């Protein structure tokens, strides 16, 4: 059975490009374009790993989704890779790091992301699962 990866991102171009890469590597891919849809679908269908955007309907939506996933016993063990352009887009002088309380994800990657970096992070986190 191929591993199932959920992409929760409101940028259809990004989702389409990443989805094509993941499918080429043999992963099954599901897409959601906002946090609520992503949470509902992951709870219903399960996932082996989640790629989660930060800025969607709300600027910090991805952080809220990550916390909701962590609070739910059914989803708290699913590895989450946070993908964000928030630092560049908001011109913040600092980035974000994974943090149990505020950013409860496995790793934070800054967009634009090189495919080989993303694939390595996915493989490593699927192995840890």
């Amino acid at each position, binding site marked *: 059975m191929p591993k199932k990866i959920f992409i929760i991102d409101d940028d259809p*171009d990004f989702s*389409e*490009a990443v989805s094509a890469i993941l499918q*080429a590597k043999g992963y099954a891919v599901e897409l959601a374009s906002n946090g609520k849809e992503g949470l509902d679908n992951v709870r219903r269908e399960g996932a082996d790993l989640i790629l989660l955007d930060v800025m969607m309907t709300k600027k910090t939506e991805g952080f809220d989704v990550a916390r909701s996933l962590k609070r739910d016993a059914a989803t708290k063990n699913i590895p989450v890779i946070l993908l964000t352009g928030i630092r560049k887009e908001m011109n913040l002088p600092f980035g974000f790091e994974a943090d149990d309380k505020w950013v409860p994800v496995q790793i934070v990657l800054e967009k634009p992301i*090189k*495919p*080989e970096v993303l*694939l390595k992070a996915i493989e490593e986190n699927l192995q840890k699962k």
Partner: protein
Amino acid sequence: MIRKVLMIDDDLDFIDACRGFLEALNYDFQSESREEDALPKIQTFKPDLILLDVVMQKETSGFDIAQSIFNDAELKNIPVVFLTGYFKKARLTDKESELIRQWANVKGVLDKPIKPADLLKLVRRIDEEHQG
């Protein structure tokens, strides 16, 4: 079916970005950044698709290469896509527009900067035409 992609461009960072994306999609990717080596590279690599920049050593290097491809009976059916900022920056002269219209193998133009998703859509469209 498109498997081998050759990119002819003198921007090494741009080549790297496209290489990362297309190799992740399992395409066999090679590149050439020197205009004078473009044709020999096409002849040896025999790509299924050529991604071609316009402005290299000369303002219109890509057009010269496209013309050479089109003049070569063995190469003239290889699909070519211009990846360039040239069409946005410069108004095509009547002669250039006429030239491009003659090249049946030119399947599209993507203006730089290019979104990976747009490149993917174009490659898939050419692939479908190829098979269809």
